[in-house]
């Protein structure tokens, strides 16, 4: 496995391979082709606002569907089509736009199966971009993956590498439940080894990114890499961190997390989101409840502060959890 491609290209390849395999896979979203109805290039003008779906509308012209800026209608249409036999992948450009269409995710897609007594199957994948680092300010930088995680009926996937992005997206499309697939905008350019052939990664299986005996760091999405920097630095000081990337946060692999904490006796949770009612709280609570006796020190959480994402780079760099803050948190558990 030597081929290296970007996180963005891994997502594109997963979409392309699934569209090739299954004619019921359609892609809907703003500018996913781009140019529809325009005077200039009418197909593949953009291929997604950041080019993630570039080229797909040339291969599958009828199944890459540009939408109006009308998230409630097209996200809901994807949900409705999923309940009627299609396998849509719908793109909500930024997770921040969830506010305008949340009902279709929360009250429709998530609820059908339960409230209809187990008879509905709604295989919709809702791809969306999250996270900071682009100086995109308060309405284009939020993390929010904890929000769908709170809702029974939704699955939430947060890949941190190109390899995971491809395998988890293929799994998401084939999965028969509604899936929210979270792509960190600052990871799109990141390259990594990705097999050319199609493959899936099961949900609910964490990845032990780095093994260590002194402290467990659970980190999500882009924070896996920030935690890696901290761990490398701490290793020079003789502290061995074990980094766990849950990869999916609903379902979540509690066993791997708990087993690690039982080994290390220390836990630091790194979460780019705001701290209240967050994944950091969720994971900390679970460990406090189920592995309390193993803990040698209080759990530490490294998160954004309880503020909206700021615009100025001087502020945003303070807002996003840094390797230095993770190092400090690890040291505080020692």
């Amino acid at each position, binding site marked *: 496995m030597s081929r290296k491609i970007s996180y963005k290209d891994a997502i594109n390849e997963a979409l392309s391979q699934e569209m090739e395999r299954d004619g019921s896979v359609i892609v809907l979203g703003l500018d996913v082709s781009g140019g529809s109805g325009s005077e200039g290039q009418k197909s593949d003008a953009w291929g997604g606002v950041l080019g993630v779906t570039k080229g797909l509308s040339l291969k599958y012209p009828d199944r890459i569907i540009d939408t109006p800026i009308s998230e409630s209608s097209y996200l809901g249409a994807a949900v*409705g089509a999923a309940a*009627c036999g299609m396998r849509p992948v719908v793109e909500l450009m930024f997770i921040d736009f969830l506010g305008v269409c949340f*009902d*279709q995710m929360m009250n429709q897609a998530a609820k059908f199966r339960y409230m209809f007594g*187990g008879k*509905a199957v709604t295989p919709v994948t809702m791809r969306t971009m999250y996270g900071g680092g682009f100086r995109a300010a308060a309405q284009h930088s939020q993390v929010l993956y904890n929000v769908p995680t709170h809702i029974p*009926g939704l699955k939430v996937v947060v890949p941190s590498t190109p390899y995971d992005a491809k395998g988890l997206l293929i799994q998401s499309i084939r999965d028969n*439940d509604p899936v929210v697939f979270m792509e960190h905008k600052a990871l799109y350019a990141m390259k990594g080894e990705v097999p050319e052939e199609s493959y899936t990664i099961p949900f609910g299986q964490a990845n032990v990114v780095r093994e260590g005996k002194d402290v467990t760091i659970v980190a999500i999405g882009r924070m896996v890499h920030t935690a890696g920097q901290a761990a490398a630095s701490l290793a020079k000081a003789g502290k061995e961190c074990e980094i766990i990337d849950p990869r999916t946060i609903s379902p979540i692999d509690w066993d791997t997390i708990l087993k690690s904490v039982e080994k290390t006796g220390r836990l630091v949770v790194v979460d780019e989101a705001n701290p209240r009612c967050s994944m950091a709280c969720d994971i900390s609570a679970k460990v406090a409840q189920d592995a309390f006796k193993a803990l040698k020190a209080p759990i530490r959480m490294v998160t954004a502060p309880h503020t909206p994402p700021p615009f100025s780079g001087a502020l945003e760099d303070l807002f996003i959890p840094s390797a230095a803050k993770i190092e400090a948190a690890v040291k505080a558990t020692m």
Partner: protein
Amino acid sequence: MSELKKEDLLKAYRTMREIRDFEERLHKEFATGKIPGFVHLYAGEEAVATGVCMHLNDEDRVASTHRGHGHCIAKGVDILGMMAEIYGKKTGSCGGKGGSMHIADLDKGMLGANGIVGAGGPLACGAALAAKFKGKGGVAVVFFGDGASNQGTILESMNLANIWNLPVIFLAENNGYAESTGVKYNVPTPNIADRAAGFNMPGVTVNGNDFFAVYEAAGEAIKRAREGGGPTLLECKTNRFYGHFEGDAMTYKAPGEVKQQREECDSLKIFAAKATASGLVTAAELEAIDKEVAALIDEAVEKAVAAPNPTEADLLTDVYVSY
């Protein structure tokens, strides 16, 4: 009426009678305190669901509303299962996990009653998109009220349906009240169907208490959709005989308003008069249906009351296909 045969008329009457008796009985049973939750009755609006769904088959999809019992019955959902569901029983259409506002039967093309006003618009667009990919002439209908006509989801969906040329019918059931607030306050145009012009689609307003008017207009819209002619906004002006929900004292209605509607605008009376006048059916045939339906509703209530509750094991199942 020309295309309707005797069996069509009897079927339509039976459906309307089933809806009426189902709702009238629920009104009585709700008052006894045995029915949990929120119940919104469709009595008075029977001609709308019936006139539309007579044109649909199981492959056609309907997205319904919180006032959905009529749509379910007209779409062929099992009445015994519906009643048991409303009682919260394990034998209900949804195993007691949905209730009045969430009755669904996907095999019958019933995408669910819906507790969120206006939410059906996008779902029907999706059903219509799926039908379009299937290429067999399937259509989707979204029922929504005058209240929902102001929801962004409905307006966005009309836009989406037209730009994608979807086989979807926007069926506005204008019963005059968004909960307690009058349509004259909520809607600035004389008719909800006037809004169709803004989306460059046909907009038609008919008397929703007249089955034949609804049947004809819906037939035209559905035919157009099946043939690739795109969406239609069809408004049916009708009345609801009960409150927004059971327990609503209807203080916003004028004294005698419902009484007058029952006397002058009762969809079943209008249907019976026209159908018997056509010579195709007799009053005796309609009365025979009345008796059969009354027995069916009795059976539905008896079975619902006697049915078992869901158990603790049911609480945790069917959240996901797999997890």
